[in-house]
């Protein structure tokens, strides 16, 4: 039986994001939110630990007004209880790690699961900072996870070799995309998710950060975008262009 905490994030749907042609700035208005990619892998892994070894999964998200949506999806995937920490304003690992660690430090847990980096900001700082604040080991970049004798064992990817690592519990484990295929909860589970316990807490942030955004814009794309639906015509044109490039 394990007490499992999974932390996840809601992000703007970056795949639907358009860019303003005159300023090169992303158009954020009316862009829908979605559960962040690696967060889904983290939730999936947390639920699998519960299913395999027994226990309970508590989901925590630090989010904005739409966070309930993300939490419902997590509950539908198998998370047992949700805690929404409300008040998220900006991507800032200093703030996020502080908010999460403060909450978790008052909780009972054996293992905390997070994605190793998030698909939008790609910072990768939050897990290590939370682990250090809680004085527990950071066991990072798992593509495989097993529990045995109240220890956690993971396979960690590396460029030259993969490492099999073991740590005592409690520990914080981060997962990579390849660890699992997140389940798509059936409608009936999403409906039932509404009945699971979900707490919302307003968060007052008192962390100082010196970070200021100067600009945030897309590199200019000057692609020709000549797309052929007629394969033979496309092959003829493109092979001509390619012959000019290849000696």
């Amino acid at each position, binding site marked *: 039986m394990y007490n499992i905490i999974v932390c996840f994030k809601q992000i703007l749907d970056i795949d639907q994001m358009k860019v303003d042609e005159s300023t090169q700035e992303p158009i954020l208005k009316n862009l829908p939110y979605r559960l962040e990619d690696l967060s889904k892998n983290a939730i999936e892994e947390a639920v699998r630990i519960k299913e395999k070894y027994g226990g309970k999964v508590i989901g925590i998200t630090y989010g904005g007004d739409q966070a309930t949506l993300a939490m419902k999806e997590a509950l539908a995937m198998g998370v047992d209880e949700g805690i929404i920490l409300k008040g998220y304003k900006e991507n800032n690992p200093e703030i996020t790690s502080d908010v999460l660690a403060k909450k978790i430090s008052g909780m009972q847990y054996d293992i905390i699961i997070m994605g190793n980096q998030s698909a939008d900001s790609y910072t990768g700082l939050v897990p*290590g900072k939370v682990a250090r604040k809680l004085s527990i080991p950071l066991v990072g970049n798992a593509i495989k996870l097993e529990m045995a004798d109240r220890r956690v064992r993971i396979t960690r990817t590396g*460029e030259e070799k993969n490492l099999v690592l073991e740590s005592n519990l409690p520990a914080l484990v981060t997962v990579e995309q390849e660890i699992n295929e997140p389940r798509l909860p059936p409608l009936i589970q999403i409906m039932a998710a509404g009945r699971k316990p979900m707490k919302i807490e307003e968060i007052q942030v008192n962390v100082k950060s*010196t970070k200021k955004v100067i600009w945030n814009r897309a590199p200019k794309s000057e692609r020709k975008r000549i797309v052929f639906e007629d394969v033979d015509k496309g092959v003829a044109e493109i092979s001509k262009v*390619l012959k000019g490039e290849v000696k």
Partner: protein
Amino acid sequence: MKAMVFSEKADLSSQMLTLFRNTFEMDLYTTSNENLLNFGAKNVFKLTGNNLYVDNISEKLAEMYKNNGYDIIIIGSSAMGREISSLLSEILHLEAITEVMKIEPKDGIIATERFFYGGKTVIREESEAKIFTVLPGLVDPQPVNSSSTENNISIDKDSAIKVVDQIEKPKSSVNLEKADIIVSAGRGIGKKEGLAVIQQLADVLHGEVGGSRPVCLDYHWLSEERQVGLSGKRVKPKVYVACGISGQVQHIAGMRGSRMVIAINKDKNAPIFNECDYGIVGDLYAVIPKLIEAMKK
């Protein structure tokens, strides 16, 4: 300004020492056994110990940072580098910014640039952060004539994490960052055998084969060093041919520097067609053999 530079990797170490040679006075800390004495660091500190991992390395680096009066910490961006930066930032109570492509100090403030929104945008920030991780592949390492002083530091404290096994991977065989022509395979090839036709096209174009993340990391149809994208290699060939790749932001972030992009995809709404110069809507198994035929003529 005095910088503490760390990477466990030799290539990243020499890249960072080249990149910041004219900006900072640098000491390199590394666990690599390669010779890194001629890249312009004042001192090279080799970290040795029985069970080196991110926790005990971070604690040692924090101690050296405090003792040696550094102004800034620059770490090579890798899984290990990012983890060390996050732990250091807590131990030393210093703000960190990861995955940067640029570091420009000015009057106590540091301007940085990094990818944002999954690689869709680049964000420029100013901060008083003191810890940075730097993306690989920003420069070609250039040696200098002078030599660094070599020092050894042994780390006696054990890690809380035990390495119980190591699984060797095949060694690097390509340098995609240097390739003139790249033909990349995406999940759309559907099966490992599909690589044969990708390789044939690469052969007639005298290019290298690359791949999207699922092809390299999920299915292992290609080795990891062939992965193009935000979490893989950032390539800049003359021609990049994307076959069966949808064109998600994280992939585009790795091939945006290509001079010409050609896309083959059976879905005419695939985002890759917004990021290409020439595209063909069709089944890659039908299109590529025709293209190879036409190239041979």
